[in-house]
Every structure is written in structure tokens, then in C-alpha cells.
């Protein structure tokens, strides 16, 4: 069956329908990782988006359920040059096309993803419709208006945990408790903390600072999550209180942006975001560069950060955008990239150890 991708500027790509034959509208973003498609598909930060894989052979190693980063598939659709139904890996339990069908995710294969990526890079991230219907030229203006009208909203509400839950450490206990403020977290944040002997209590994004502080955590972790950070009024308000407390805070991605917003800085939308496993980030204190996993469409505007409140801790080597903040006089470190990797390089996983040190200090 044929499937189409119609972008909001009218550009249309035609391919083959591989997943569920549903029609969806989503924000179209591309990811340049060459491995980790299941981790990407189950990353809640993709809620409301459709992912274009620039690597042309997706599905090669099938589905290893252990690699899921949440219990759901979050992108509304996936787009690839080739989707393989020949899985080969000792852990594989199913094929990617089967998984997509089971979760009712439409997917298109056989389109020129490089041309699409170049288009998104030059014209900027835009919305698009994935459909198996063949629209007539007369219908197009109406359809395009509908596509343009789409915005990713409610991402955090959809992806955060429904209720608080405590998790015992998986490594030898170090007697520390961390409150994980869940904005749509990737499982590996939780796994990374528990593996370090930490007891973790997961709080939904609807929780208040009071509830979190009442847990008497040794540290607070703010997770990644989807959407425009500025949409999260409630969390931003609560974070002000958390900032004021003296508890060590470590935040990733959306968590990083929210803490910046809570302390008076501003965020902005990047032209086409950073999504991949090869982004160089410089530790501004040591000068060392790390290869990081990234997935974000927004960034903290350094011009709006009050140097009395926070200083840049990390910077992107390619486009010099902010990749992390160290809060002055506070035990708070926030990063834009993903030290929990999954997928991607584990070069910065030591930051979780640093978080432990922050709590022990």
C-alpha cells in the first residue's frame, strides 16, 4: 500500500505503508543515530512528533523488548528509507513492522529520507501529515491549513507517570533517596540511579514541590520530556521552590530548560533541533569534549541567563548552543544532552556519579 507524507509547505513524498494504515498529523523531526531505533521510538520526548531516521536500514536487529525506554511508542509515526523485516539478533523477539502494527503506528518506507532531511534542515522543522489516502489537488489547501494548525501540546501530561511510585536500588544501597520529577522520563534515568544504589521515588509532573520535599530526598532529578518547555507553567512554578531548597538537583533536557525558565531565563526553538548520537559537547570547566546523545528542539538562551544565578557548564562544539548550566551558590547541575544515553554513547554517564557526589558533599 502506498503512503504519503505531506509537509505543511505542500512538499509531498510517496513511499510504502509499513506500519498501521492510519492518518496522523505530527511535527516532523529527523534523528541521525545509526542504532537504537527502539529506544528512540519509546522515548517519551518524541510525543506528538514523527521521526525520520536518516540511517536507511532500520529494523535490522529486530525488537529486543529489554531496550524499551518506556512502555509505549511515542512518536505518532515513523519514516525511513528502508524498514527491514529480517531481524537478526540473539535477543530479538519480534520484527519492527509487527511492533508498529501492534501499537497502531503508521510508518512509511521507501522515501528519499536524505532529500527530506535536507528540506527540514533548510526550511526548518515543520508539521506534516502521514496518510495512505490519495488527496486530490483541490483538497490540498484545506489539508495544509489543518497541518499548519497542529502543535505538540500536552506532551508532559501524556507521558508522565500517573502516580508516584518508589523503586528500590538495584545496586548495593548507598542509603540515598532521590525524587525523580517525571516529565516523560526515559527508563534509563531511573535504571542509572537505581544501579548506583539509590532509592528512587518517581513523582508525576502534576506533583507539587511540597510533596516532593516532603519525601525528604537527598537529591532531586528532573527528567527529560516532550514539547515546548514554556507550556509547563505548573512545573516551572514548583521548580522555583525546589531551587530555593538546598537539595542537590540534577536535570536532563526538558528538566534543564525548565530549571532555567524557573530562574528567570528564556528558551527558544532551534531551527531543526539536535537529534542523534554524535553531538560533541564541551565541558567548559575542563575543556574536555564528550560525544553525547541528544534529542531536543528547544534550547536555553544564554543571553537571558543571569550570571549571578547560573553559568554555562557545557557548550555544543558545532553550533555553540548551551548544553548545561551550573547554578551559582547552589548544588544544581542541569544538562541539555542525555547522559543516560539509550540510545547513544555512554561517555557522560559519569554525571550520575557526580550527582551522587553532590548528594554526599
Amino acid at each position, binding site marked *: 500500500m502506498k503512503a504519503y507524507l505531506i509537509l505543511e509547505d505542500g512538499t509531498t513524498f510517496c513511499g510504502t505503508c509499513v506500519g498501521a494504515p492510519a492518518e496522523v498529523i505530527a511535527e516532523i523531526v529527523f534523528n541521525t543515530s*545509526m*542504532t537504537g531505533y527502539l529506544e528512540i521510538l519509546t522515548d517519551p520526548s518524541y510525543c506528538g512528533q514523527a521521526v525520520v531516521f*536518516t*540511517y536507511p536500514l532500520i529494523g535490522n536487529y529486530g525488537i529486543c523488548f529489554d531496550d524499551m525506554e518506556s512502555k509505549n511508542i511515542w512518536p505518532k509515526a515513523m519514516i525511513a528509507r528502508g524498514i527491514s523485516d529480517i531481524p537478526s539478533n540473539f535477543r530479538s523477539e519480534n520484527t519492527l513492522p509487527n511492533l508498529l502494527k501492534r501499537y497502531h503506528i503508521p510508518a512509511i518506507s521507501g522515501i528519499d529520507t536524505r532529500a527530506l532531511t*535536507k528540506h527540514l534542515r533548510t526550511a526548518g522543522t515543520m508539521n506534516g501529515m502521514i496518510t495512505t489516502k490519495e488527496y486530490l489537488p483541490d483538497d490540498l489547501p484545506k489539508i495544509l491549513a489543518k497541518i499548519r494548525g497542529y502543535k505538540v501540546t500536552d506532551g508532559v501530561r501524556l507521558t508522565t507517570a500517573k502516580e508516584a511510585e518508589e523503586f528500590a536500588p538495584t545496586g548495593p544501597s548507598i542509603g540515598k533517596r532521590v525524587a525523580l520529577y517525571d516529565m516523560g522520563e526515559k527508563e534509563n534515568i531511573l535504571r542509572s540511579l537505581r544501579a548506583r544504589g539509590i532509592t528512587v521515588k518517581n513523582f508525576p509532573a502534576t506533583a507539587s514541590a511540597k510533596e516532593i520535599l516532603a519525601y525528604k530526598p537527598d537529591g532531586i532529578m528532573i527528567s527529560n520530556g516532550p514539547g515546548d518547555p514554556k507550556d509547563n507553567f505548573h512545573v516551572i512554578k514548583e521548580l522555583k521552590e525546589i531551587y530555593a531548597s538546598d537539595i542537590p538537583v540534577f536535570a536532563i533536557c526538558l528538566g534543564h530548560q525548565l530549571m532555567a525558565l524557573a530562574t528567570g531565563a528564556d528558551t527558544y526553538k532551534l531551527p531543526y533541533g539536535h537529534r542523534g*548520537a554524535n553531538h560533541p559537547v564541551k565541558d567548559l570547566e575542563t*575543556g574536555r569534549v564528550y560525544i553525547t546523545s541528544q534529542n531536543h528542539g528547544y534550547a536555553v538562551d544564554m543571553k537571558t541567563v543571569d550570571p549571578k544565578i547560573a553559568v554555562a557548564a557545557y557548550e555544543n562544539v558545532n553550533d555553540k548552543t548551551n548544553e548545561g548550566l551550573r547554578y551559582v551558590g547552589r548544588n544544581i547541575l542541569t544538562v541539555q544532552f542525555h547522559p543516560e544515553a*539509550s540510545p547513544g554513547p555512554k*561517555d557522560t554517564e559519569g554525571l550520575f556519579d557526580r550527582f551522587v557526589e553532590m548528594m554526599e558533599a
Partner: protein
Amino acid sequence: MLDRSIKKVLVIGSGPIVIGQAAEFDYAGTQACKALREEGVEVVLLNSNPATIMTDKDVADHVYIEPLSVEVAMKVIEQEKPDSLLATLGGQAGLNMAMALSERGFLETHNVRLIGTGTEGIKKAEDRLLFKETMAKIGEPVAASEVVSSLEDGVAAAARIGYPVVLRPAYTLGGAGGGIAENEEQCRTILENGLRLSRVHEVLVERCIAGWKEIEYEVMRDHAGNVITVCSMENIDPVGVHTGDSVVVAPTQTLADKEYQMLRSAALNIIQELKIEGGCNVQFALDPESFEYCVIEVNPRVSRSSALASKATGYPIAKVAAKIALGYTLDEIKNAVTGKTYACFEPALDYCVVKMPRLPFDKFVTADHHLSTQMKATGEVMAISSCFEGALMKAMRSLEQHVDALLSYDYSAVDDNALRQMISDTDDRRIWTIAEAMRRGMSGYEIHMLTKIDEWFIKKIGNLLDMEQRLSTEPMSVQLLRAAKHMEYPDGVIAKLSGMTEDEVYAMRMENKITAGFKMVDTCAAEFDAMTPYYYSDYSVENEALPEDTGKKKVLILGSGPIRIGQGIEFDFCSVHSTWAFAKEGYETIIINNNPETVSTDFDTADKLYFEPLTAEDVRNVVELEHPDGAVVQFGGQTAIKLSQQLRGMGVKILGTAPEDVDAAEDRERFDEVLRKTGIRRPEGHTVFTEEEARKAAAELGYPVLVRPSYVLGGQGMQIAINDQDVTEYIRQINRIAQEHPILVDKYIRGTELEIDAICDGQDILIPGIMEHIERTGIHSGDSISVYPAQSISQKAKETLLRYTGLLARELHVIGMINIQFIAKDDDVYIIEVNPRSSRTVPYISKVTGIPIVALATSVICGHTIRELGYTPGLQPEAGYYAIKMPVFSFEKIRGADISLGPEMKSTGECLGISTDFGEALYKAFLGAGVELPHYYKMVITVKDEDKEDIVPIAKRFADIGYKIYATRGTYEALQKGGVACEKTRKVEEESPNILDLVLGHELDIVIDTPRDGAKNHRDGFLIRRNAVETGVNVLTAIDTAQALVTSLENRKKDLCIVDITKLSR
């Protein structure tokens, strides 16, 4: 930051091309030298290989084409006083040299710093024991192993390690005496034999990881500790097949992110510990059924794999490594491809890359075709596509082995059991035998169990077979055609399968716009805007390679494809120099080539690079896009020449000598016509098609005769026949290789062989020099020792030769290069061969005469005259020194290959000996080729009857140096009669102790064994020659080579005079 105290750097190259150390080091070295000079650093280069681009005076400031011996390196350091040494770019040869210099304390006393990775790191990677300790320290697993020297110790070690175990006797070449033991009984048998064969009576007992996945990472580190991965690669063949012989795919395909990151982290962990500064290759074995892995090997330098990784990703590893050595950190080095981002990132690929090895079994028909841990490939091809199937199809046809699809070899006569056996014995045809088995219904799982090749790859082959089936059964449709082209089925194969003609397939494609588009290799999967003009083709995609109107004329330069015996790195040298010369002439340059090891496929060599197979269809895709003003074919060897007619059919003008004139030189009858017109003599001969005609021709000419196919390079299939039986056998051999061209039968004349390369502008002729071969006729020119200037030629013969050259060049309307080989017998001159194109000797003769032959030829092709270019036509004044080109062989690597020299070329590389003294030049040439003698002062001589007279004075000279000579009966008698002291030894077929025991005694320096001509006679000495070469003995099969060697040894001295060729004055 740039370390400004580094002002003058010595770079050591990798020496002659041998199997396992090929053109990739010229690519790396050239790129590094350019990177160093960009920073204002003065570069001193030492490399014995004159065929390389890195030894050009344009590439380095001081160039020593001298033997890679420690003594020579010390001499260079004393003379040039460099402050630094960069050793990680010259392969294992360069690295070993640097370590030797360091260990002697020579670097320290001469204030030379080793830049790039330090000695500690190199030692930790190279020393087996230190490596094990280092890996244990950082918790990286290696396959458990123990060295044992007795049977009982061995059995105990095997029990500790756990069966199966691999047993590897120490110091036996080619893994002789080793094997895999599944249980104690097998272990005892193999150990017993292995301990006996090992010179030091030691056997390594190692855990068997054969069958695991072999995964490689190319990684980089700077002095600040920043680490990145450039590329991951997955070998399709499991552990047990050398990665150089394996089909390799990039990036890895069957690893989930968990496994990928696990190995990536391990690789980075290792280079942190080794404190690598530059590039490094890490090889892993990964259990396909678990997360268990072992580190197989770490190469703390650039390598064949790093060249492949550079071409596969666009990331210039050698260049970045050189900058790191100068003190830069990765984040300070610009990504030359995007011009915007930095070298501190990991390339993202949005395509699939397949590398296939070019194996030399077409040259060594009798050799063992099995693939194992000893590399046998002479070269490789790379192909890029958006799917694995497409990349595999493109790689296959890039090999130039008459292979264009999975049906190219016919196994229909092989029964199922035999086929199963063929599949489990991994050999060079495994892709095709697997395909045949699948056609017969064998399951992917069954093939996987037999081969341990991951089922993903097997099923992809299955996809190609499904297409084969569809094309031959379904009616042709646009959809089917589109799908076939996406998998890169060539038009010719589609036509054959579907019953259409090739023209019909092409017409249908044009009608339905099923044409190739070109995509860019940009390091970043289109995330950033990139400027690199490096492209590959793909179907059903938007074309990115938009020709720009630069107002310049466009020239298409066809490369020479994979390195193989007969068509080596020399042709890449010529292609690259021609490209540079065209650029100087104001042309926009476009290269098509498929060899990842070369300088020609570096992204900044030409204005545009198309990484494509060199077949007519693939070239046409580029032509239809670029519409070049002309194409040049005379620099890319036979690969390019073969495409001339087809290029013309596409409407492309061939620049330089016209295709019909090229044809006139190759076509026997037309060439005879040329000779008749010019009155030039050649050995009498006939063109034949059948065995019968051949025998008739031979009878007419009288034996011995030369038999060879026309249209070949490197004398492939050429043989000297002494009787009818030989003729029959050779003709059958020739016809086994697909042969559309006639066969030539010539009278064999024994004389001195001479060779020239000349440039003709249509009027005048420039001859840089005359080369003379040390071996008499009958040995391929590429395997002969070549001397410039010619020594023994008479004045009259020389005049005749020059006159003939002029006549031929003009009669063939040569514009550009011509190569001619002659035989001189006293004052008579005969012509053997004319090639109106660039030849193997061009780089060598360019360097030693200081005449930039390729650049001049290119200017001539562009319309300039020799006089305009400032040269006086005719033979150029002879140099005041001797320059000797020595062939280098890789025989010890190809089990079962006959090493005796003949009309078919067998050498893989060459080195140079240059001096004002002939003897010293000869000594240097032998030394450069690895002949470090004398050692044991013992030798064996066994020569054919015709040589018995000539051998006496030679043997006497060896004896005078101090050699103890052993000789077989006939030779012994001849030597005794000639008054040379020697000892008699029995022949192989006689009872022991015989000549074979002498060879296996590991105490011989030299074996001189000149086999009698003819098929049967060659086989007699085969066993001796093979055993000798595998135990590291120097084997000479021509009497003239023996004479040259003794002259060389008489002139040996420790204190060699070294020559900076940039200072040679013409």
C-alpha cells in the same frame, strides 16, 4: 594548540606494496604530509617505494627513496636533523622502525621526539604479554591463551582454557602445523606435530572464538583525552577469516545499540589507557549469542581499515591524526567536509558501505583458495548504496573479475553434498556458492550453521535471489524494473534474465525516468550543509550532484579500480598526477574510481569524486549527468582503456591518443600492419583462436614459443611452451578465464629486455630514459629488476630503439604517453609490446629523472607541445647515478602459489635502490626488498642444464663471500668441474636427508633454483621453492637475479650513501 617547537618532522612510509600492506599507506602518508606542510612544518620522508605519491617532491620537502632499514633511518636523521618523528602513518613497517630507533636510544641522543602515539602505548598494543596485562588492568577481556613448550603442559593449558582451543605453533609461516582441537585427543595430535614444526618448540594454546562476529572500530584520541569513534565495521565473515579478506560492511548492521555502545565504550576505554594520540583500530570478537566479547587486536596507527573508514564516512583520519600529532585537539580541527563543524564528532552515515577483497587467485591458479587468518587479498573495492543488496551488487562488479551478479559462476554441475562442502570451506567464491545453495532451497539457518555468517546477510542475498527469480519469471513492468535497479541489478543482467536486450532495458528506464541520482557523502547525514563533492549513485532519489557552470572545461578521469597483481598503485599515481595537471590547465576534474585505499579517492584530489564501479553502465550514469568535454583513459591502466570504445559510444571525446590507435597497438593484425609500414621487427608470431591453430603456429615458429591472451595486463596467462603438450595445457588455462579476444603465439627470443616510457605531442617525442632489465627475456617486465640508465646496450641498438620509438609513436598518432618494450640481441632490436598509455614504470622513471612525465603528458593532451613546455625532444641526458627498481613478492602469504618467475607477472610491489655506484644501488635495492644477507652463509644451488655453465662464476663469487654451497647432482658436478667447492645434496624425490631437510633446517640464506621451461618441469621444484619461501629463505629462480644478488652482496657496506631525490639535478 599547535606545538610551535615542532619544525621539522620525519615521516616513515610503509615500503613496497605487499599483501597486507598496500596503497592505503600512500593515501594516509600523502594526506598526513599535506596536513603537516599546511602548518608550515618541514617534512622529511623516508620510503623505499618509488610508485607512491607520498615520495613526490611536491608532497614532502626532502624525499629519501631508500631501504627501510634502521641504519638508513639513522643516516637520514643524522643528515636532516629533524626534531620529530611521526611513525604511526607508515603501517607496521614504519611503526617497527620507529620502535627500533627508540629502543636503541638513537632518538633520544639525537633529540628527536616521537610525535603522535608514544612508545609506551605502541608497546602495550604490540607486545603480546604487555597487551594481555594492559587489557586485564582495565578489565577488557581477551581470548585466554598460554604459551606451552611440552605436550603435557599443552594439554593442561587446554583443559584450563576449555575446549575448543586453537593451537598456533610459534614461528611457522602461514600457520603451518596449527589447528583447532575439539577435545584432548585432537589436542595431543596437533600439539605433537606443532611442537616439532616450531623452530622454538613453542605452541600457543588459545581459546577458540572462531565463528564469533568480527567487529572493528576506528577510533581517535588527542592529547587532551578527547576520544571519538569514526566508524564501526562489521565483517560478514566471522572470526577466523582475516578482515582484509572478509566482506566488510559499515556501519555495523546486526548490533543493537546495547552491543554497539558496549564495544564502542570498550574501544575508547582502550585508547585512553594506551594514550593514543591519533588514529587507532580496535578489533573485537563478539559472541553472536550473548554480550560476551574479546579484544582481538589493537593497531595503534592508521591501517587498511582506517583508510576504508575514511572513505566510508568522509572523515579524513590520517589528516586529523597528523594535526593531533602537531598538538591540536579534536575540537580545534575543522571538519574539512562541512567546513562548519569540527573534527570532534562522530560521523553519521545515511547509506550502507560494502567492501570486498580483490583476491589474486586468477594469478595463482594453483594456490589454495581458502580464506583464513593469513590475509591473501592484494586490494579491495568499496561500494555505497542506500541498501545492503545494492552495495553488494556494486562491489561485486567493481572487482573486475568478470562478475556482475550472483549468477556469474556456474555451479549447476556441483551436487548438493559437494556444494555444502564448498560452503563450509570458506573460500573466495562463498557468496556465489551460498547463492546457489539458496536457489536449491537450503535455508538461511542451515547456511548460517555451516558458515557462521549472520542470517541477516544471508537473507539479504536471498532478496537478491528473489529478484533474480522475479526477473526471469515475471513479465517486465516498470515497478519490477524500478525494484531491480534499487538493488543495483545492472541492465545487462536484467536483460539476460528477462529475455530483453540491454538496449531495451535502457530504453525502458529512460522512458520511465528510472535513472541514477547521486547523493553526497557528507559525514553528517545531511544534518549540516556540506561542500564535499564526494558522491555515490542510488536509484529513485533526488539528484544532489548538480553540475555547476564554472565556465571551465570538464575532464573525466577514470581510475584503475582495485589493486591487483599487474595493475598496482602506479596507476593511481598516474591518475592523481593527471588530475592535478588538468586542474592546473584550468579544467574541472572529475574522478570515477572504487578503490578505498588510494589517493585518487581522497575527497580533495579532484573537483568531484564519484565512488562508483568502473563498468560502462555506471560510467554512463556520470556521463549523462556531467556531460564532460572529454575523458582521459591513458592513465588508469587496462581498466580505463577497456572503456574507451563505450565512452565514445556515449559521445564522450577521448582526450589524447584515439581509441582506434590504442586498438591498433593491441590488435595483432592491425599492429602487424603498423610494423610492416614502419619496417620494425618483432619476434615472429601468429594470432590463433583454437588449440589446434596454436599447435600449428608453434610448429611453424619452432619451440620455445610464448603463448598469451591479447588484451591483458601483467602478462596474465602468458607462458613459455616448449612442446605441444604445453600449448594444449596453456590454451585450456586461458580459455578457463572468460576470453573474447584471440590468443597470441610468438617465437621466444632470448636477449636483453629494454623498456621506455615516452611522451609524444604528435610531432616530437620526449624520452626521459631507457631502462634495462637484469633478467633476460621470458620474465615479465614487472618482475624483472630494472636498471636506469641502460647498461649493456650497444650504441647501434640504442639508435635503432630510439628510431623505432619515434616511428611507432607517430604511426600510432600517440598524443600523450606510450610505453614500449624491446628485446636487444647484439645490435638487433625487436619489439615485444607497445602500450599507448601510461605504464608501471612511469612513477619510478619520473622520480629518478626528475621529469614530471604525467604532468607533461597531460599538458600535451591539452594541446601543448613538448618544446612549448621547455623540453628538448629526444632522449634526455642520462643521470649521473644508477636507479634500480626491484620487484617485491608476497609469495609466503599465498599457500600453494608457484613462485618461479616467468612471463606472467607475480610481484605485488617494488622498491628503489639509487646511488652513483652501481653495486651500492643494487645492494640498496635488494635491502629495500627485504633481502638482508648474509646471515647463515649457507645456500643451495640447483639449476637447469642451460644454466650450468653460467652458474659456475656466480657460485664462485658466492663462495668467495664465504658461502657454503650445497648442490644437487648435476649442478654439483658442474660446480666441481668449475673448481667451486660445494657439497652434494639429494633431490626431493630421493631418500632423506635431502634438499628438503636442508630447507627445513631453518639455516639457509638462499636457494637458487632455475626450473626448466615447460609445464611439467615447473612442478618438479615446486615443493622446494614453496617450503623455502615459507621458512623465510630467499629463493631465486633466474640466473640473472642470482648474479645481481652476488654483485649486491659484494658491494654491501654498512655506511650507505643516501640520496635526497628533491636535490637531484637533471
